[in-house]
Protein backbone atom coordinates (compact mmCIF):
# COMPACT_ATOMS: atom_id res chain seq x y z
CA UNK A 1 0.00 0.00 0.00
CA UNK A 2 1.55 3.29 -1.07
CA UNK A 3 1.08 6.78 0.38
CA UNK A 4 -1.65 7.63 -2.14
CA UNK A 5 -3.83 4.73 -1.08
CA UNK A 6 -3.28 5.61 2.58
CA UNK A 7 -4.41 9.16 1.82
CA UNK A 8 -7.44 7.89 -0.06
CA UNK A 9 -8.39 5.65 2.87
CA UNK A 10 -8.14 8.63 5.22
CA UNK A 11 -10.21 10.74 2.83
CA UNK A 12 -12.87 8.05 2.62
CA UNK A 13 -13.01 8.03 6.43
CA UNK A 14 -13.76 11.75 6.24
CA UNK A 15 -16.99 10.86 4.48
CA UNK A 16 -18.38 9.61 7.81
CA UNK A 17 -18.96 13.08 9.35
CA UNK A 18 -20.35 14.28 6.03
CA UNK A 19 -22.80 11.39 5.96
CA UNK A 20 -23.88 12.13 9.52
CA UNK A 21 -24.40 15.75 8.50
CA UNK A 22 -26.47 14.75 5.49
CA UNK A 23 -28.95 12.70 7.50
CA UNK A 24 -29.69 15.27 10.18
CA UNK A 25 -30.44 18.96 10.52
CA UNK A 26 -32.28 21.42 8.34
CA UNK A 27 -32.27 21.42 4.56
CA UNK A 28 -29.49 23.99 4.39
CA UNK A 29 -27.41 21.94 6.87
CA UNK A 30 -27.86 18.88 4.71
CA UNK A 31 -26.94 20.73 1.55
CA UNK A 32 -23.70 21.98 3.08
CA UNK A 33 -22.84 18.45 4.20
CA UNK A 34 -23.70 17.15 0.72
CA UNK A 35 -21.39 19.69 -0.89
CA UNK A 36 -18.62 18.69 1.52
CA UNK A 37 -19.17 15.00 0.74
CA UNK A 38 -18.99 15.75 -2.99
CA UNK A 39 -15.69 17.54 -2.62
CA UNK A 40 -14.27 14.73 -0.48
CA UNK A 41 -15.36 12.19 -3.11
CA UNK A 42 -13.57 14.08 -5.87
CA UNK A 43 -10.37 14.23 -3.82
CA UNK A 44 -10.63 10.57 -2.81
CA UNK A 45 -11.08 9.56 -6.45
CA UNK A 46 -8.04 11.59 -7.39
CA UNK A 47 -5.83 9.85 -4.85
CA UNK A 48 -7.26 6.39 -5.61
CA UNK A 49 -6.45 6.85 -9.28
CA UNK A 50 -2.94 7.91 -8.43
CA UNK A 51 -2.53 5.05 -5.97
CA UNK A 52 -3.70 2.44 -8.48
CA UNK A 53 -1.59 4.07 -11.21
CA UNK A 54 -4.45 4.15 -13.70
CA UNK A 55 -4.00 7.39 -15.55
CA UNK A 56 -7.21 6.96 -17.52
CA UNK A 57 -9.18 7.12 -14.28
CA UNK A 58 -8.29 10.80 -13.94
CA UNK A 59 -11.11 11.52 -16.37
CA UNK A 60 -13.53 10.12 -13.79
CA UNK A 61 -12.59 12.62 -11.10
CA UNK A 62 -12.44 15.38 -13.70
CA UNK A 63 -15.98 14.59 -14.82
CA UNK A 64 -17.14 14.42 -11.22
CA UNK A 65 -15.53 17.76 -10.40
CA UNK A 66 -17.12 19.40 -13.42
CA UNK A 67 -20.57 17.89 -12.88
CA UNK A 68 -21.02 17.49 -9.13
CA UNK A 69 -20.50 21.08 -7.99
CA UNK A 70 -22.90 22.64 -10.53
CA UNK A 71 -25.45 19.95 -9.72
CA UNK A 72 -25.29 20.85 -6.02
CA UNK A 73 -25.59 24.49 -7.09
CA UNK A 74 -28.68 23.75 -9.15
CA UNK A 75 -30.14 21.77 -6.28
CA UNK A 76 -29.64 24.75 -3.95
CA UNK A 77 -31.38 27.09 -6.37
CA UNK A 78 -34.22 24.65 -6.96
CA UNK A 79 -34.68 24.09 -3.26
CA UNK A 80 -34.68 27.80 -2.52
CA UNK A 81 -37.19 28.66 -5.21
CA UNK A 82 -39.72 25.85 -5.13
CA UNK A 83 -39.50 23.92 -1.87
Amino acid at each position, binding site marked *: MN*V*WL*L*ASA*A*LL*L*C*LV*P*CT*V*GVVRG*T*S*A*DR*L*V*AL*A*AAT*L*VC*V*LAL*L*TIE*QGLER*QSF*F*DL*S*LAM*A*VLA*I*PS*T*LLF*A*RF*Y*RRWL
Partner: protein
Amino acid sequence: MSAREAVIAALLLLAVVTVALSCTGVLVMRTPLQRLHYLGPLAMVAPVLIGIAVALAHGVYAGAGLKALFIALVLAAFAPVLSHQTGQLADARREP
Protein backbone atom coordinates in the same frame (compact mmCIF):
# COMPACT_ATOMS: atom_id res chain seq x y z
CA MET B 1 12.50 7.79 0.34
CA SER B 2 13.67 10.54 -1.98
CA ALA B 3 13.12 14.24 -1.37
CA ARG B 4 10.34 14.34 -3.96
CA GLU B 5 8.50 11.46 -2.29
CA ALA B 6 8.86 13.16 1.09
CA VAL B 7 7.37 16.38 -0.29
CA ILE B 8 4.51 14.43 -1.89
CA ALA B 9 3.81 12.64 1.39
CA ALA B 10 3.86 15.93 3.30
CA LEU B 11 1.46 17.54 0.82
CA LEU B 12 -0.91 14.59 1.06
CA LEU B 13 -0.75 14.67 4.85
CA LEU B 14 -1.58 18.39 4.84
CA ALA B 15 -4.47 17.77 2.46
CA VAL B 16 -5.89 14.96 4.57
CA VAL B 17 -5.61 17.04 7.75
CA THR B 18 -7.35 19.95 5.99
CA VAL B 19 -10.17 17.70 4.80
CA ALA B 20 -10.57 16.06 8.22
CA LEU B 21 -10.75 19.41 10.02
CA SER B 22 -13.19 20.80 7.46
CA CYS B 23 -15.48 17.77 7.66
CA THR B 24 -15.41 17.92 11.45
CA GLY B 25 -16.29 21.61 11.26
CA VAL B 26 -19.17 20.91 8.89
CA LEU B 27 -20.50 18.37 11.38
CA VAL B 28 -19.89 20.30 14.61
CA MET B 29 -20.98 23.85 13.78
CA ARG B 30 -24.50 24.85 14.70
CA THR B 31 -25.87 26.98 11.89
CA PRO B 32 -25.58 26.47 8.11
CA LEU B 33 -23.79 29.80 7.72
CA GLN B 34 -21.16 28.68 10.21
CA ARG B 35 -20.84 25.35 8.41
CA LEU B 36 -20.36 27.09 5.09
CA HIS B 37 -17.07 28.57 6.29
CA TYR B 38 -15.59 25.08 6.41
CA LEU B 39 -16.29 24.44 2.73
CA GLY B 40 -13.63 26.99 1.79
CA PRO B 41 -10.52 25.04 2.83
CA LEU B 42 -12.14 21.85 1.57
CA ALA B 43 -12.65 23.31 -1.90
CA MET B 44 -9.63 25.57 -2.22
CA VAL B 45 -6.76 24.31 -0.10
CA ALA B 46 -6.99 20.51 -0.24
CA PRO B 47 -7.46 20.20 -4.05
CA VAL B 48 -4.52 22.50 -4.68
CA LEU B 49 -2.31 20.48 -2.32
CA ILE B 50 -3.31 17.19 -3.97
CA GLY B 51 -2.97 18.74 -7.42
CA ILE B 52 0.56 19.89 -6.63
CA ALA B 53 1.37 16.41 -5.28
CA VAL B 54 0.11 14.77 -8.49
CA ALA B 55 1.97 17.30 -10.60
CA LEU B 56 5.14 16.57 -8.62
CA ALA B 57 4.67 12.84 -9.14
CA HIS B 58 4.11 13.09 -12.90
CA GLY B 59 5.54 16.44 -13.89
CA VAL B 60 3.54 19.61 -14.39
CA TYR B 61 3.27 19.22 -18.16
CA ALA B 62 2.22 15.57 -18.05
CA GLY B 63 -1.43 14.78 -18.69
CA ALA B 64 -2.18 13.63 -15.16
CA GLY B 65 -0.53 16.65 -13.57
CA LEU B 66 -2.41 19.06 -15.78
CA LYS B 67 -5.70 17.29 -15.13
CA ALA B 68 -5.15 17.36 -11.37
CA LEU B 69 -4.37 21.07 -11.45
CA PHE B 70 -7.41 21.67 -13.66
CA ILE B 71 -9.61 19.81 -11.14
CA ALA B 72 -8.24 22.06 -8.38
CA LEU B 73 -8.99 25.10 -10.55
CA VAL B 74 -12.57 23.94 -11.24
CA LEU B 75 -13.25 23.29 -7.55
CA ALA B 76 -11.74 26.63 -6.52
CA ALA B 77 -13.78 28.44 -9.18
CA PHE B 78 -17.12 26.89 -8.28
CA ALA B 79 -16.76 26.86 -4.48
CA PRO B 80 -17.55 30.58 -3.88
CA VAL B 81 -20.65 30.34 -6.08
CA LEU B 82 -21.80 27.24 -4.26
CA SER B 83 -21.21 28.88 -0.88
CA HIS B 84 -23.11 31.97 -2.00
CA GLN B 85 -26.14 30.04 -3.20
CA THR B 86 -26.21 27.78 -0.14
CA GLY B 87 -25.87 30.84 2.08
CA GLN B 88 -28.85 32.43 0.36
CA LEU B 89 -30.83 29.23 0.92
CA ALA B 90 -29.84 29.21 4.58
CA ASP B 91 -30.76 32.87 4.93
CA ALA B 92 -34.14 32.32 3.29
CA ARG B 93 -34.89 29.39 5.58
CA ARG B 94 -33.73 31.13 8.76
CA GLU B 95 -36.36 31.62 11.43
CA PRO B 96 -37.23 35.32 11.92
